[in-house]
């Protein structure tokens, strides 16, 4: 009987996360199932990395005080640390030497610097907002990227990294969304190769396309110690979710479980 109870307890510990949860910002409990504990040791909450992120993304201490984590910056349950973990994945997930040159076709080489360059400033909110993040852009407006509660507590680290890259595309290309796709609600790109729409917008894939490409490159070229099979599965399913539900016209390709692409119409 004792053995049975022990087995059940061990099993429960494997899949249930209560013991690993701690009170976090926005009144939410931080789940341990979002891979923060996988990535946190890989960059060690190093001060130099923090300084670089702080500068590159124009964080402001006033925005990240209290439960947001400024005074507890290495605690994986806070919004700030969960944002940092995603930024570090964006930087080092596919290379140990991220660059600002966008000459490589592999977005993982430059996604971090490019996102930092294009996101004007970044700040958090506890609002759910019906969204993960939003970016305001334009010539005569204050440009910013706002991260909502679901970004911190409903997304895995790799999803968060994809969201940052996605928002950077909004900031960079002034790419808006439409409401014509399975998900609707101002979350759609018209198609994969030309998805950047709106007044003064750029050309090429829109923000959803950037999410897909980030997941694809990550799933197929991530550094071996920055991914495991569960995280790859998470990245592929995220990419396929976007391919399935976020384009007005079906992009006609999907990824298999290894991240490789196949024509599907």
């Amino acid at each position, binding site marked *: 009987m004792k053995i049975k109870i022990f087995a*059940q307890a*061990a*099993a*429960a510990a*494997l*899949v*249930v*996360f209560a013991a*690993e949860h701690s009170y976090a910002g926005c009144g939410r409990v931080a*789940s341990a*199932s979002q*891979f923060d504990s*996988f990535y946190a040791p890989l960059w*060690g*909450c190093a001060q130099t990395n923090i300084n670089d992120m*702080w*500068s590159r993304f*124009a964080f*402001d201490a006033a925005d990240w005080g209290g439960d947001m984590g400024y005074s507890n*910056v*290495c605690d994986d349950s806070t919004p700030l640390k969960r944002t940092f973990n995603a930024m570090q994945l964006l930087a080092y997930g596919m290379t140990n030497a991220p660059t600002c040159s966008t000459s490589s*076709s592999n*977005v993982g080489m430059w996604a971090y610097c*490019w996102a930092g*360059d*294009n996101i*004007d400033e970044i700040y958090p909110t506890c609002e759910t907002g*019906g*969204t*993960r*993040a939003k970016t305001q852009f334009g010539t005569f407006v204050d*440009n910013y990227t706002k991260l909502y509660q679901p970004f911190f507590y*409903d997304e*895995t680290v790799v999803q968060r990294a994809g*969201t940052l890259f*996605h928002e950077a595309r909004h900031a*960079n*290309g002034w790419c808006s969304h439409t409401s014509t796709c*399975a*998900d*609707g*609600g101002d*979350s759609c790109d018209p198609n994969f190769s030309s998805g950047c729409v709106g007044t003064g917008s*750029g050309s*090429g*894939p829109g923000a959803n396309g950037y999410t897909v490409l980030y997941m694809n490159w990550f799933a197929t070229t991530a550094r071996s*110690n920055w991914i*495991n099979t*569960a995280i790859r*599965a*998470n990245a592929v399913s*995220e990419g*396929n*979710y976007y391919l399935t*539900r976020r384009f007005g016209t079906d992009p006609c390709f*999907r990824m*298999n*479980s290894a991240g490789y692409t*196949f*024509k599907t119409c």
Partner: protein
Amino acid sequence: MDAVGTGSQAALDAELAEFARTSDAVDVLQHTYASLPRQAAASRFRTVYIAGQIATPAAVKFLADVALSAPDIVAASAGHGEVTDQGFQSRYTASTALVHHYVAAVPNAAEAVEQLLGNADPEIAKGVGVELFSQGKLSEAWRSKLKSRNIFADFKAIEGAELDKLRTLDVEHAGHQGASKKTRVRVSHVAVPPASE
């Protein structure tokens, strides 16, 4: 213990193997999955992923139940970036795990895959087709099964120049902003408390 979080792939494999040896592993996973709210998509994904590593008929049944479940659509009031099909990742992950079980000849997996091709929601069925095709296991009979549902089944790997075209972004000419356009002043050093973990 964060089963699919902490440590290397080897650590993950060891934890999963240990867990899979427990006699009631699938029961625990089923119970956990059922108890998780739809919003806990990451936890539900993780639960299904773990079940996918257990090569038993009980795991096959659980995975098939998940993969065959109907899309879990939240009302379309969802805004920019909100996930409306909360169950997609779980269904997709369960379905690809079943294909892997089929390839590994796990009992009942072949029947489960066939059921998915015939009855899963079309996007999941298509994903199963892609996974089977990529493993060289999409038979003509199963291809026909997809086609009978008007689901595309003439899959083809995207490779070479075609893949390059798909994956290459011309970011230099595709946007507006850059480092020089940043309006908030950057700071070179921030007095953030040092690492304390």
